[in-house]
Each structure stands twice: as C-alpha cells, then as structure tokens.
C-alpha cells in the first residue's frame, strides 16, 4: 500500500550536512498498525514528517497506492497526522476542530455535521462538542486530535508520539483505546514512539530505527525473541550480552565448562540471553552452565532481579518470578549454579562497542 524506496533525507550543506535518513526502504500493508521505534534523533519523526509531506525527501520515492507522492504537498495527500502536542485550534470548539478538514475541502454542511457527530461518538466525546479546545484535559484533547485526523477518512493515519504527554495511567488506557479505534476503523496506522512497551503492546509490525537506518522490521514477538543485532536486542527489553567464541561448530564461553554445538560462522560472537530465561540452581542437558556469586537482589513485586557476578568481570542479571512462598530465594553473597539453556541463547555478530 505504502512503499518507501531508498528514502534519504539530508539537512544542511557542506561540512555541516547531516544525513537524517539513509536510503530507507520498506512497505506498509493495508490495515496494519505499523510502528517506528527508536531513540530520539534516530530519524523516526523525520520519516513520519516525510510521509505527511512536511519534509521533502532528498532522494528516493514514496509510493502510495501506486502513485509517487514524494513531491505532493501535505494538503493534497490522503494522509492525516495526530501531532505530539495535538495542535488543536484554540479558537475553535471541539466540533469545529473535528470538522475542520471537511470544511477546508468545501464539503456540504450536512455532511460535515454528520461526520463530526459520528467521529465524536467514536472517541466518546459527544458531550463536549461545544467546548473550546483549550478547556479540555490532556486525554480529551488527545481524543479530539484523533477524531479530527480521522474525520476526512485518510488512507493512512500518522501518529507522532501522541501518548508521550499523558500520565502513566491515561497512557495505558489510550493504548487500548488506540488499538480499538484502529481495529474498528480498519485503518492503516503509522505510529512513532520511543517507548518500546507502547510499541510492543499495540503494533502489528515494528520498524526499529537507529542513526537514520532501519535496524529490523518484524512483529513484536520476533523482535523480542530474534533481534537482528545488538542494538535491537538492547533497545527492546532487558538483555544480557556475553562475549563468546565459535570454533568449528562449537560455542564456547570462557566461564562455562562445556561447549554447545551450534551452526554459526567461526570467530568471536556476542551471546544474548534474556534475564527471565536464565535458570538459577538448576542444570539442563543442553545448556551452558557456570557458577556465579549473587551480588544484589532487587525486589520488583512480581519478580526479583538477581544481579550475578561470574569469572572475568562478567555480570549478568537474572529474573526470578516470585512464587507464593514468602522470603527471598537467595541471599546476597551466595554462590549459585546458573544455566543458560541453548534454546534461550541468541548469537549476534560481535560489534565494536
């Protein structure tokens, strides 16, 4: 539906030139909840503004329904944006805000008011239709911004970190609400965020970006379980990285006695294991087993983080679910046997840190 082909964006000229996007290419499918995830300055907002039409690309094509829209101005693209600060028109009522796009298009009055009523219904704000937008709470403004962007029935709805200004509780509610709206309207959403939890809970697919490049595009589960590189692994969820070595199909970790058979190219590798996959005090047939000292226990309610110290300055964090019995399962200073099951291990190419 939307194809990005080698999209490039450079700012400035000469020595001060800065490339915000390096030949980004991917496709977004019809009806998909697609998220651009990355730290600030990774180029995700630039990419979104490019789809909206606010930033002309320095190179590449942007194809929507078979038509290159890269040079089309924002007011002619069938794409609408929910802005980070909502950007509601302060001198207009909620209803006028929602009807703005249709008025600008010169649609008949009856259609505008009918659509406005339907949109306000959709975001459950019908009772506030005649308030000025400045008199609303953050969450309500958020809903108005959504209704306003949905009213002209865009092909794609762009959302620029729309939840970042809300408090934690409201944010969780809006996450559910957004997903509901997306499923109800069957619209394509392109969502920008730096919050990995937001991305994981709502998205059909996520593009992880860093330094103006796409690092990986995958479903939330794939991203978490099979990150393509160290950046993705570290950005999404918590992870332990262990330097290891591959020789002739055998994986060896200096701290573990036995080695594991793997199919991976020879040379140094980075071993990745999620904290919840580390087994404490147990051994398994197909696992790397090592001993470590419990440095610190951090209680998190549902689980406890166990900070471990193994030979060679290797620190690991394991996450142990807190059972129904009370009391800490380990004591600080205690030495325990830990095993890293082979199915929990991911091998990543070693990168220069």
């Amino acid at each position, binding site marked *: 539906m939307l194809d990005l082909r080698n999209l490039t964006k450079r700012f400035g000229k000469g020595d001060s030139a800065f490339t915000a996007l390096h030949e980004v290419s991917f496709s977004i499918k019809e009806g998909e909840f697609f998220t651009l995830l990355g730290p600030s300055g990774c180029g995700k907002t630039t990419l979104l503004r490019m789809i909206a039409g606010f930033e002309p690309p320095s190179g590449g094509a942007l194809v929507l329904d078979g038509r290159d829209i890269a040079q089309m101005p924002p007011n002619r693209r069938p794409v609408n944006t929910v802005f980070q600060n909502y950007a509601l028109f*302060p001198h207009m009522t909620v209803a006028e805000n929602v009807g703005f796009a249709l008025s600008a298009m010169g649609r008949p009055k009856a259609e505008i008011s009918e659509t406005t009523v339907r949109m306000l219904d959709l975001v459950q704000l019908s009772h506030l239709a005649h308030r000025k937008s400045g008199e609303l709470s953050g969450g309500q403004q958020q809903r108005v911004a959504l209704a306003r*962007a949905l009213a002209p029935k865009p092909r794609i709805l762009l959302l620029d970190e729309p939840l970042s200004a809300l408090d934690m509780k409201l944010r969780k509610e809006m996450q559910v609400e957004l997903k509901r709206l997306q499923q109800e309207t069957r619209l394509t959403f392109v969502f920008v965020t730096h919050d990995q939890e937001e991305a994981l809970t709502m998205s059909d697919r996520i593009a992880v970006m860093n330094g103006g490049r796409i690092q990986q595009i995958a479903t939330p589960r794939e991203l978490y379980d099979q990150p393509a590189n160290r950046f993705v692994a570290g950005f999404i969820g918590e992870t332990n990285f262990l330097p290891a070595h591959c020789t002739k199909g055998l994986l060896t970790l200096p701290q573990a006695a036995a080695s594991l058979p793997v199919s991976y190219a020879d040379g140094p590798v980075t071993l990745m294991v999620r904290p919840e996959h580390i087994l404490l005090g147990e051994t398994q047939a197909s696992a790397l087993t090592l001993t470590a000292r419990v440095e610190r226990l951090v209680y998190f309610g549902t689980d406890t983080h166990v900070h471990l110290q193994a030979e060679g300055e290797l620190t690991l964090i394991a996450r142990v679910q807190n059972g129904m019995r009370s009391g800490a399962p380990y004591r600080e200073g205690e030495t325990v046997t830990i095993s890293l099951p082979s199915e929990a291990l991911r091998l990543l190419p070693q990168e220069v840190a």
Partner: protein
Amino acid sequence: MDAEARLQQDDTRRRWALALPAVTIITLFSILPLVLVVVYSFLTPGDFGNVKWQLSFEGWFGVLFERDIFDDTVSFSDAHLTILGRSVALSLATTFITLVLGVPTAWFIATRPARQRAFWLFMITIPFWTNLLVRTIAVQEMIRSEGVFNSLFLWLRVIDAPIQMMFTNFAVLLGMAYVFLPLMVLPVYAAIEKFDFRLAEAAYDLYASRLYCARKVILPIVRPGIIAGSILVFIPSLSAYVTPRIMGGGKSMMLGNLIEMQFGQGRNWPLGAALALTLTALVLVALVWYTRLTSGKRKDV
C-alpha cells in the same frame, strides 16, 4: 466594638492608605484637568483669551454651528465639519496604510530565526530615539519642492516643475504613517511571535490551502494584536498635532490644530475646551469598539 470588627476596620483603613498615592495622582492629573475642561467649555470667552465666569453654551454651539456676524443666522460650520471629517478620514487612512505595511513587516520579523528577530526589532525601534519633530521635518525634507524627491526627479527629467507635495493631505498622511508605523508593527509582531506555527502545519495537513489556513487559523489567532495595533495608531492619529502642523500647514488642519488655535489666535477657550471634549468622546468610542471586538463573545463562525 468587638475585636473582629476593629480588625476589619483597621484593614479597611490600611487599604485606603495604600490606595492614597494612586488616588491622589489620578485626581490631580486626570480627573481635575478633565473637570476643568468641562467647566471651561460652559463659560464665556474673555476678550484677550481666558474666560469670563458666565454660563454659556456658545462653546458647544460652536463645535458644529456658526452664527453670521451681521444677521445672526445659524448655519453648520463648514470649516469645523471639514476638519473633523479630515481628521477621521486621515486617521483611518493612516491606520490602513500602517496595517498594509506593518502586518507583513511584523510577519517577516516574527518568522526570522530567534537571533535575528532582536536585530530587526531594534531597527524598527530606532526612530523612537529621535524626537518626533526631527522625524517629521526629515519627511518634509524628502518631499518639499526643493527636497530630495523633487530634485531627483527634476535631475532625471521625469518632471519639468517640482510637484507640490507639502501642505496637502498626502503630506500629512505620509508623515503620520511614517511616525506611527512602529506602533502597528510591535503589537502585531507580539501576536505573530506567540502564534504556534504547528497549528498552521496541522491545518495544512488537514487539506487547508494556504489562503484557508491564513483566514481560518492564523488571522483569528493574531487578530487581537492587529486590533491593538490599529487602536494604537488610530487614537494618536486622531489627536495628532505636530505632524499635521508641519506637513499640512494651514491647509490640511486636523482637530489637534483646530483646538490649539482656539487657545491661541482664536481666543475662544470655551470652544477649544468643547472641541477637546469632542475629540475625547471620539477616542472613547474607538476604545469601546475595541473592547467589544476583543473581549466580547464572538458568535461561532
């Protein structure tokens, strides 16, 4: 008297004491002179200026009418009506010209990068450092018959004889527009500078053309600044004295000059006082209209 009542009384006293300096200043410099003007407007003119303490409505009568000195027939005072009309017309025209020049200027400054704005504002305020008289005479130097423009055009052989620009309505208009332009630019700039350009972006995203966005989003939000600027230009224009005196001479007189005349050559202080109050009333009307425009509840568009 119980303690609470005494405390309350102390409080009231203290409030009065605190308000005293302000009340004194307002009474001495604002209310008292105004009362004096009102009283003078109902007295009889003295033979050599000043007033005789004799009740008379001639002053007010003279604002709009005149009596023939031979047969006492009453007719409208053409001269006064012309001057009144000219004052309002020239002030409106000045406001219009400063709007046309000032709004784009303010827009230009407000859309520069933050660092450059200070420089441009500085350029706008520089004329304020110069005395009004000097600035007006500078304009005169440009347009008088032997002035810069006429000399240049004569030398270029665009014209054969100097164009008479001084002592016309055009001269007064030019002088006032020049002098009052910063009063328009500054409030409009302040309004545009506060405008959140992300709103324009949002409108653009929602299928608005540039014109529609300017009309429906930018203009309604910066409107208070434009109205404030118009009022700031219109009111001093209406009561302008120096500029019409220098640029218009005796030919393009405005209300301010007419009033001054009554206290000078005219030796008709009551008429001067009545004219001054007429001017005050006009300004008041403009101000009431202004408050209506800005604070009154607007109907939904």
